[in-house]
């Protein structure tokens, strides 16, 4: 039986990928009875679309790395059940989308047909839930206190840290990354989160997003190398989650590891990082 979605496509007009996103949405609505949420009209009148988004599992279709549809879903607080990025799907399939025309050619139509067939039968995977099997449900912390400020560090063995105060929780070829309490306390109220692109291949110590507060901009330096597979979309709407707890609800991204054994040589475990953070707090934290 075909799946019925509430579909939020980016509907971009500037690139072929945006046009393909719109066409995929229409194709699915015709073939499955799914309902389309117009990303433009949704900003004008959201009552009807909020109802649709609640009644059916939400499929978000982005065209390019700007991820306008994902951002809109985050702004509206919608729970995304499935997400597709046309540019990334094309890359995975070895297809070069047109760059000189917005017209959909046979290659683009084939990609749309394949994606439609897949989405009609694929199992849901809620994006906003925590993956308890990968990441522990509860963490234990050691703390260091300076004046009224508390700096926590998780004690679990699978946590590693770089000198740039970014952590990685490593398990089964994957890592979840985020910043440490030192970063969020130093920045104070974080107002903006710039996410890395899902699908981006990064090397250890590459930038993997940034944070901005009234005090400063912090470049997130990746502790590991690999491919970004998931981003904490909740932070786009609520970056203050990082201030609340940068290890749990404030995590940044997940990365499929390329060669962790090599990365590990330039990282610290809890025992190595704790005195580094303590020294930084004593020397620099105001």
């Amino acid at each position: 039986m075909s799946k019925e979605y509430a579909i939020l496509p980016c509907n971009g007009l500037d690139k072929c990928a945006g046009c393909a996103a719109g066409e995929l949405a229409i194709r699915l609505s015709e073939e499955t009875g799914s309902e389309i949420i117009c990303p433009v009209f949704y900003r004008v009148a959201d009552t009807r679309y909020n109802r649709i988004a609640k009644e059916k599992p939400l499929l978000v279709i982005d065209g390019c790395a700007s991820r306008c549809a994902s951002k809109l879903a985050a702004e509206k607080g919608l729970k995304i059940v499935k997400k597709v990025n046309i540019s990334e799907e094309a890359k995975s399939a070895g297809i070069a989308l047109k760059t000189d025309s917005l017209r959909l050619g046979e290659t683009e139509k084939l990609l749309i047909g394949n994606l439609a067939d897949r989405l009609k039968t694929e199992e849901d995977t809620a994006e906003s839930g925590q993956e308890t099997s990968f990441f522990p449900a509860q963490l234990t912390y050691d703390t260091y206190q300076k004046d009224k400020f508390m700096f926590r560090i998780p004690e679990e063995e699978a946590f590693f840290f770089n000198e740039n105060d970014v952590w990685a929780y490593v398990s089964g070829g994957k890592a979840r990354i985020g910043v440490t309490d030192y970063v969020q306390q130093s920045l104070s109220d974080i107002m903006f989160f710039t996410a890395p692109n899902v699908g981006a291949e990064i090397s250890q110590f590459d930038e993997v997003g940034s944070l901005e507060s009234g005090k400063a901009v912090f470049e997130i330096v990746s502790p590991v190398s690999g491919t970004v597979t998931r981003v904490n979309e909740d932070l786009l709407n609520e970056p203050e989650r990082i201030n609340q707890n940068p290890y749990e609800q404030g995590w940044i991204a997940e990365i499929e590891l390329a060669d962790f054994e090599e990365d590990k040589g330039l990282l610290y475990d809890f025992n190595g990082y704790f005195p580094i953070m303590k020294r930084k707090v004593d020397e620099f934290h105001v």
Partner: protein
Amino acid sequence: MADINIGAFKMQIGVISCSGEEMLGGTLTRMATRKVMEELRPGQAISLCLPLFLAGGEEERNFAKNFPVISVDACEKHCARKSTEKYSGRVRDCVVLTDFLDPEVIFSKTVSMKDLTEEHYHMVDKIAEEICKKIDAASAGS
């Protein structure tokens, strides 16, 4: 030509169309804008992506602040014109499909590209023609 010469400055013209999925009219504005950009006035106007504009796209918003823009809306909700005016300023001119095409078709359900009819393509041609008239008028400074 779609470039306007004002003193030493050479101005360009933007086209921002609703391109929505609420009704077939959105699809028609998308196709007409594409036809203008790729066939009728290639290199003479720039298309602005409305979803990106609304999502905070700085390049789109700055362009619309600094250059004349023609909005293309399917219906009287005027999503393209109102959004442009909200974030960037007044539009130079606007095209509204319900002013000159059958509203029954405009308000009908969106269809896949493969199911578009001769009538739809004829409507796309008429919309593209209207957009071109506005571009040419803006170019002439009228």
